[in-house]
């Protein structure tokens, strides 16, 4: 299951959904809003998604993970909206009979999600600036598009 959520995530409930008598390992990844990025103090983040396509592409990533790795279950939920330092932005959980597959698949899901799923992040800095991450273009001041 891959979902875009406008509501805060509930990791305990998400992880319970992966419970399975055949699973001996469960690896989770949580992405937290961090107080810095590329050396700049960050105050808050806005996440935005093109939800229908994000959920399609996310479902494709989970299907690829199931094909590549011997896993039992996989879930990824990405939060959208205004988040503050310490808030949970994304949760990935993978269960498997053995831990190697659980680690590898969890890593695969978050790597592919960050690379392919239409979710965008705007950082708000301590100095009042903001920037859409990865959207800087040549000629922009510093490494960020200011808006």
């Amino acid at each position: 299951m891959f979902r875009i959520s406008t509501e805060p995530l509930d990791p305990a409930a998400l992880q319970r959904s992966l419970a399975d008598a055949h699973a001996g390992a469960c690896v989770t990844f949580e992405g937290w809003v961090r107080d810095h990025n590329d050396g700049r103090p960050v105050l808050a983040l806005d996440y935005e998604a093109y939800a229908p396509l994000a959920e399609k592409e996310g479902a494709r990533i989970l299907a690829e993970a199931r094909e590549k790795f011997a896993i039992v279950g996989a879930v990824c939920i990405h939060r959208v909206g205004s988040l503050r330092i310490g808030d949970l932005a994304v949760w990935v959980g993978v269960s498997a009979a053995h831990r190697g597959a659980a680690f590898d698949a969890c890593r695969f899901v978050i790597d592919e999600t960050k690379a392919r799923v239409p979710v965008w992040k705007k950082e708000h800095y301590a100095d009042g600036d903001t920037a859409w991450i990865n959207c800087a273009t040549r000629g922009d001041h510093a490494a960020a598009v200011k808006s």
Partner: protein
Amino acid sequence: MITVHIQYFAILREQRGVARETLSTPATTTAALYDELRTRHGFSLPRDRVRAAVDESFVAWDTPLRDGQNVVFIPPVAGG
């Protein structure tokens, strides 16, 4: 001329100033449509940094546009 529905996200939404619009265009591909909009609205992102989606699926830039389709241009993603 065809009529298409466009939805903007993130930096493109901010640079366009609206989240959605319906417009008539002579463009026959998603590439031509992005180029037209970039010129008109001064989008900072060159086309090679953007992807196109039609009716909720990624498409190639030379995909023909048809009347009534829903088009989204995808700026560089940054989830996680």
